[in-house]
């Protein structure tokens, strides 16, 4: 836990300007920051957890409506976005690596790459949201829902009094969760991109190196966490009852 005396003096000059007054040494400071960031991410788990709990309960109760709602989502865009976000996690991890070994240029480049991929994700999300507005799939006054043909059970649909099997109000619930969950996620992405922009600037100014790169590491943790949320959101929202 304690840095040896020799190392301490060796890096004394470099250490002084980043060590905060109330910490004994950089190692203590770094560990505190890591622990603090993780504890913060735990709160994020519980934050999204409330949404997941509600989603789970209603999906069990109104499975057909959720499946029908899910089938209107664009699976291709969802899958592409998953790939984009995973790629951005990779660039983020590489940025942390570059900062650790003191490769300033690489750090900046990987951070920029992460920002670009994050913006691509958000752009695709905007396309998807626009589609929802177009189809009146946004919960509220103008919500409308027609059951997609594939689910309307062929022979029955031909019956003269064929009715939708789906209560549109329950489909509205699905889209309520869709917007709440992806909206919260997108909000986290936007905040993340903003922080990354500041971080890139500071990295470009040469603020981070082998001795001190805690901010890069912690922003990385945050970014990966946002990625993990999406890893769960993708199957939960896009992949309900896709077969048959």
């Amino acid at each position, binding site marked *: *836990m304690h*840095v040896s005396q020799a*190392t301490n003096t060796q890096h004394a000059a470099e250490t002084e300007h980043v060590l905060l007054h109330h910490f004994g040494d*950089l*190692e203590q400071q*770094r*560990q505190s920051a*890591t*622990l603090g960031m*993780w*504890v913060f*991410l*735990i709160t994020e*788990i*519980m934050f999204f*957890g*409330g949404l*997941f*709990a509600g989603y*789970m*309960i209603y999906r*069990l*109760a109104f499975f057909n409506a959720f499946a029908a709602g899910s089938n209107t989502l664009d*699976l291709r865009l969802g*899958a592409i976005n*998953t*790939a984009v976000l*995973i*790629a951005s*996690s*990779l660039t*983020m*991890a*590489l940025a942390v*690596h570059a900062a*650790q*070994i003191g490769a300033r240029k690489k750090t900046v480049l990987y951070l920029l790459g992460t920002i670009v991929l994050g913006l691509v994700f958000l752009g695709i999300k905007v396309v998807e949201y626009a589609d929802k507005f177009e189809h009146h799939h946004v919960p509220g006054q103008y919500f409308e829902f027609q059951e997609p043909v594939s689910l309307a059970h062929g022979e029955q649909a031909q019956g003269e009094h064929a009715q939708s099997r789906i209560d549109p109000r329950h489909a509205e619930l699905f889209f309520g969760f869709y917007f709440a969950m992806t909206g919260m996620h997108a909000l986290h992405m936007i905040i993340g991109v903003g922080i990354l922009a500041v971080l890139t600037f500071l990295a470009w100014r040469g603020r981070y190196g*082998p*001795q001190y790169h805690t901010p890069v*590491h912690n922003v*990385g*943790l945050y970014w*990966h*966490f946002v*990625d*993990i949320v999406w*890893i*769960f959101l*993708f*199957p*939960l929202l896009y*992949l*309900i*009852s*896709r*077969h*048959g």
Partner: protein
Amino acid sequence: MGELMSEHVVSTKVYIGIWAALMVLTAVTVGAAFIDLGAFNPVVALAIAAVKATLVVLFFMHIYYEHQRIVWAWVGAGFFWLIILLTLSLTDYGTRGFLGVAGR
């Protein structure tokens, strides 16, 4: 503590390997969604998501190399508490109507 500090520098090869695994798992989860597995479709989807999340947590987020046991403990607590929220909510929603009395 081979490094300057107790922090571990992970090889970029590991990162790229994890990324490839994540991409493959994404393809698998999309593919699996088109096979009718009955009640197991969501189970498979969530299991794959859990594996992906674990890979990200362990390697991208460096938990695998983390020396502070308390970080492990808190990460575990986070998921454990999420499970408390989900399962104890289900004790209500899962047993409604068992008694055959309206609203009980």
